């Protein structure tokens, strides 16, 4: 008999949860600006990104002397519904800031979904660095593109 464990979570689980986002229930953003999200950097380093609300994408340049802060650009990932490209700023192994370089929707419905999902995706990236899963069933297109672009950026610094 195959042994498969089912763990009912009901827990907020950071990024992974974003894979299930729906557009309703979240205010749609009317701004055309691409959102970004940041966290204070590790205590040994000055903050490199501070915006936690949607706004103009910001990414801190490498800080002179810090040495370990890098800004990385993910692959532009095209899905059926649009193009997603992520930029991430990393200090050591910690993500300080993540933003969209591209978030293009091919249709109005996708645009609505993107607008609702984008701020969540960014914030959750920062809070989900220890999410305890390997992959997700039921994932959706925008988030897949987001994940893959982000992963390609992280691969550049070996955040594995």
């Amino acid at each position, binding site marked *: *008999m*195959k*042994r*498969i*464990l*089912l*763990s*009912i*979570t*009901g*827990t*907020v*689980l950071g*990024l*992974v*949860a*974003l*894979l*299930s*986002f*729906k*557009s309703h*229930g*979240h205010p749609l953003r009317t701004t055309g600006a691409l959102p970004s999200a940041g966290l204070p950097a590790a205590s040994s380093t000055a903050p490199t990104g501070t915006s936690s609300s949607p706004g103009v994408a910001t990414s801190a340049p490498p800080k002179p002397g810090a040495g370990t802060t890098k800004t990385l650009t993910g*692959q532009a*990932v*095209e*899905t*059926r519904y649009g193009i997603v490209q992520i930029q991430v700023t990393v200090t050591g*192994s*910690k*993500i300080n800031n993540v933003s969209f370089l591209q978030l293009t929707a091919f249709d109005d419905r996708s645009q609505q*979904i993107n607008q609702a999902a984008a701020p*969540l995706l960014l914030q*959750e*990236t920062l809070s*989900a*660095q*220890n*999410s*305890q*899963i*390997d*992959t*997700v*069933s*039921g*994932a*959706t*297109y925008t988030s*897949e*593109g987001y*994940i*893959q672009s*982000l*992963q390609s950026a*992280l*691969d550049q610094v070996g*955040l*594995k």
Partner: protein
Amino acid sequence: MSAPITALPSPTPGARRVVHCMGTVFSFDVRTAGVGQAALDEAERWLHRVDEVFSTYREHSEISRLGRGELTAADCSDEVRHVLAECARLEVATHGFFSIRATGRLDPSGYVKGWAIERASDILVAHGSTSHCVNGGGDVQSVGGAAADRPWRIGIADPLRPRTLAAIAVGRDLAVATSGTAERGAHVVNPHTGVAPTALVSLTLAGSRLGRVDAMATAAMAMGADARAFVEGLDGIEAFAIEPDGTTWSTSGWQR
């Protein structure tokens, strides 16, 4: 050291790849050292071949020509004949709730996608992989565990609560498929009535081989409220479901 965004730390060197095919995204996460790009190249070529042969969006695919009567099954490739035979078996096993003519024209996509992922996974095994995960648009075939001492942990998205996972399926050699009312709306219909069922917003099936698991998920979703009893009767497959009011249920064979 923080974990990567979607994943627990990969303890072994491996290979990743993203493939855009069949209108969705396939991601490969190979964790067996020494299994690399050549294996992924072959798996990727396989997915593109499946798209060429089986796409109902391509006018000249074998499936489109077969559907229009320009080909007979005997004219078709081994893969098409295999799929038609499997789909016929699935139709019987699901009392017609899995049907390649549910939409009125020949469309075996409900089996082909899961089967294509399953076979892509087999290609990696043939190249020596003993630990990998292939995710095609949210349907997952895994082999071995995530590490030598750790099973795969596959999150199940909750369509009703955007910031949560509903559950996590944990095991080795797991195939997991979710059918449901995703962000794009219902896409499963009851072939007997032509109506989209509303009893469940999400139904996840877990088993060993994704072709069968995915097709059974589609069929059980189409059954609506009868899905639970149906999956209880399936050997080697367990179900987790979310109802429109947020109530969840799961079949009895899950280990707790």
